[in-house]
């Protein structure tokens, strides 16, 4: 277990993240063009979705999927509420910023899912391929909860809610994940034969390059973090543990397969940095992105990538094993 955690820390992907983080903090001019980063993340979602679909087809539809999906949606509805009141209690954040931050923690991080998958597979925990669909299901509900927590806002923006709902529902990353999952499920083994190299051996390499960029971006966030107070940093480190605990609880309550519960804990603990921030700029523009992006990218993501993932796996193994 500790050995695996150490191995995880010393995997190329995570070391390249550390390299990016270090380079960024030292103000090196190393940088990945933004269109490249965007393309890499499209690739990652395509590959993750497709692989999950193929695995799901292999296993066939199962009640386990329904259970995990239900647990995931409940978590993405409940976690923002907890996060919001936690923030209001421990920090002096204004209401919109607290709500927007809460939304990020209710939603999920696709790259954390990818890193978590590697770790769980390496630990012999084979969660269901359908967990990719659960990722997609968990991406957006938190946004709506956060809007309620922030109490709508001005009439002007009320008028926007319709447009906003459509934008959230059709968010590119959700559409691509779900679509690729469906295509994987439809084409199954036959499809995998054609895309095997693209989505499997190539994946690690692309993930590595992407993590290098995420390290650079996280470092920039941390460097420019003017709004980051001690309570907020504490939140960024402890909230994932709370989310993990919730995931374990719900998994026990609903009887989620232990393997799926491990991944569910990782997802619950992860925070969004793609879909949610854009939605928050539209829905809660008064909320300070310097807070939620710094916490999500600069604090929680590195924590999960290094310490969190092995920890959540150990916890679920202990409590549900």
């Amino acid at each position, binding site marked *: 277990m500790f050995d695996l955690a150490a191995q995880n820390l010393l995997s190329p992907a995570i070391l390249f993240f550390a390299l990016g983080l270090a380079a960024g903090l030292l103000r090196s001019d190393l940088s990945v063009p*933004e269109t490249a980063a*965007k393309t890499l993340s499209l690739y990652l979602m395509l590959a993750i979705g497709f692989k999950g679909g193929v695995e799901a087809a292999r296993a066939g539809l199962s009640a386990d999927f329904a259970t995990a999906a239900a647990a995931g949606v409940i978590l993405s509805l409940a976690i923002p509420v907890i996060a919001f009141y936690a923030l209001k209690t421990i920090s002096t954040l204004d209401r919109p910023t607290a709500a927007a931050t809460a939304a990020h923690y209710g939603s999920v991080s696709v790259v954390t899912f990818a890193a978590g998958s590697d770790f769980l597979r390496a630990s012999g925990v084979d969660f269901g391929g359908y967990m990719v669909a659960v990722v997609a299901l968990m991406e957006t509900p938190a946004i709506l909860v956060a809007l309620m927590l922030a109490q709508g806002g001005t009439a002007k*923006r009320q008028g926007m809610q319709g447009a906003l709902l459509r934008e959230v529902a059709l968010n590119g990353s959700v559409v691509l994940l779900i679509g690729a999952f469906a295509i994987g499920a439809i084409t199954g083994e036959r499809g995998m034969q054609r895309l095997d190299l693209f989505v499997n051996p190539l994946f690690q390499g692309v993930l590595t390059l992407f993590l290098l960029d995420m390290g650079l971006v996280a470092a920039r966030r941390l460097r420019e973090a003017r709004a980051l107070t001690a309570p907020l940093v504490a939140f960024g480190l402890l909230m994932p543990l709370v989310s993990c605990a919730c995931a374990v609880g719900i998994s026990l309550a609903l009887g989620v397969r232990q393997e799926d519960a491990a991944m569910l804990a990782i997802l619950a603990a992860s925070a969004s940095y793609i879909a949610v921030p854009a*939605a928050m*700029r539209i829905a809660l*523009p008064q909320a300070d992105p310097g807070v939620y992006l710094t916490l999500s*990218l600069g604090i929680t993501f590195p924590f999960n990538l290094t310490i969190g993932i092995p920890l959540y796996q150990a916890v679920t193994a202990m409590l549900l094993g």
Partner: protein
Amino acid sequence: MTPTTRKKLEIIIEAPLLGRVEALLGASGARGWSVFASLAGHSSHGDWRSDGLSDAQDKRLVIAVVSDAAAQAALEALTGFFQDYPGVVYVSDVTVLRGEKF
């Protein structure tokens, strides 16, 4: 084609809000505009720089050469818009060929 004077609006807004600003320009009677991507910037809200992870803080520059009437209407609409959203707008006079286009 006698040169005529028109207003040039330059609007800097966040990428996720581009569609709303375009709608607002159209409603104000602007007949055309062009959109450009900004790489980075600075303001009282701090520095930002475009990264490919999320376009949440990316900025777009919208240039619209319009009639005085459209400029007036757009500025009024933008005044409300900028009460909710960050961004900048500034206006200047330009001389155009084919004034009827604008």
